[in-house]
């Protein structure tokens, strides 16, 4: 096995090209190092292209190798993509967050990967470059080929960064999860939402839950309940019911029953939507 720390994105792509499928990219190693390793690893964790975090041209751009710890600490992410900061702050443990990356969380394609769930609610796209030098953008929710299987072939394609519109005035986002413990436990359910208001009226809403399907899943029926209304008590109660009945969830002997998971989806959906809504209203220049 050989391990190469790439110096820039082009060199990383060149190594992948030369190795004809034998090499694979690695970032924080927190997922890949526990699996069977390929003949060659190309480390992307230190590249200029994958470590930048910036707002430009109306987009937030987060390098794929930005660690969970730096995303959770970043004032830019906390103020303009709170859901992502909250998700990253809950992953694993301080040790895992100090080295695990956002791009790795997406490419690893676990059904309830926390950062990925927040990114889908925020409407993020992955900017992917392949060994032919072609660059494309794909919505994060489109990157799942099956349970724990990504559409991205990490021996010939690299996520350089993740991009989305930052939350502006009148917008808010939030992330919540339920896990057996607050650290070192995978979530039984995680949810994220992004809401835009005008006055107190909801103009746009994206609500995501996992694990429901292989990919973080939009709850379209629940979203529809909230479109173009000023939500009150009755609506919030309906939201909980709608979210719980909209999802087809499975239980597992090791984690929890399907019924419990369904209950959690409902409860967390209501809470996360309320939180995102309150944040959106609070940032809406005080118009009430």
């Amino acid at each position, binding site marked *: 096995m050989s391990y190469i720390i790439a110096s820039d994105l082009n060199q990383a792509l060149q190594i992948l090209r030369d190795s004809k499928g034998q090499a694979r990219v690695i970032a924080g190693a927190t997922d890949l190092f*526990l699996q069977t390793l390929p003949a060659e690893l190309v480390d992307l964790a230190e590249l200029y292209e994958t470590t930048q975090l910036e707002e430009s041209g109306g987009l937030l751009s987060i390098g794929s190798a930005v660690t969970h710890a730096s995303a959770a600490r970043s004032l830019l992410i906390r103020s303009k993509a709170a859901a992502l900061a909250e998700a990253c702050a809950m992953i694993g443990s301080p040790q895992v967050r100090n080295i695990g990356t956002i791009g790795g969380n997406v490419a690893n394609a676990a059904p309830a990967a926390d950062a990925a769930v927040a990114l889908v609610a925020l409407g993020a796209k992955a900017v992917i470059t392949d060994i032919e030098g072609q660059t494309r953008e794909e919505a994060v929710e489109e990157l799942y080929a099956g349970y724990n299987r990504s559409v991205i072939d990490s021996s010939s394609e690299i996520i350089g960064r993740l991009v989305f519109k930052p939350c502006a005035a009148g917008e808010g986002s939030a992330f919540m999860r339920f896990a057996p413990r607050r650290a070192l436990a995978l979530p039984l359910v995680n949810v994220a939402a992004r809401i835009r208001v005008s006055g107190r009226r909801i103009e746009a809403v994206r609500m995501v839950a996992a694990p429901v399907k292989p990919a973080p899943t939009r709850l379209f029926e629940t979203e529809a309940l909230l479109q173009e209304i000023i939500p009150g008590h009755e609506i919030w109660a309906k939201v909980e019911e709608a979210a719980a009945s909209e999802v087809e969830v499975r239980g597992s002997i090791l984690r929890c029953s399907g019924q419990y998971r369904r209950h959690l989806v409902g409860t967390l959906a209501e809470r996360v939507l309320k939180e995102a809504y309150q944040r959106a209203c609070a940032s809406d220049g005080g118009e009430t």
Partner: protein
Amino acid sequence: MKKQAINFELNGEPVEVFTEASGSLLHLLRGQLGLLGTKEGCGAGECGACTVLLDNQPVNACLVPAAKIEGKQVQTIESLSTSNTVHPLQESFVKKGAVQCGFCTPGMVLSAYALLKANPDPTPGEVKEAISGNLCRCSGYKQVEEAVLDAAEKKDQASSED
């Protein structure tokens, strides 16, 4: 298996090793360099017994490919004490009864050390958060929390004296 030359800084000293590129930093430290203070518990990122500081940040050495540390600083528990003295943080662990079987202690101490370096006056909540990646089957964590707060207080006093 192919070996690779790796240059890094270990506890303040530059070192060069030839090692299995696919091996972990944990096995490099314990097996090849004889630094047995770093413990192996789960080998899968779940227990924190193998915690070391990589460029001042706590990480699980069992999850770090040895080749990843090229050009970086690695700090292990051995760096905190000499043959005669222990670090004030370690003294606080002893004083507060935070060491029972001791297996988690090197990792706990390093997580706490990194916290106090970044945040000399942590709240109890911040201490809990900082050691949340370190499992202890003996202490119940309360004593560890008290030890870290005690060390922070000592530091406070030391700095107000000079």
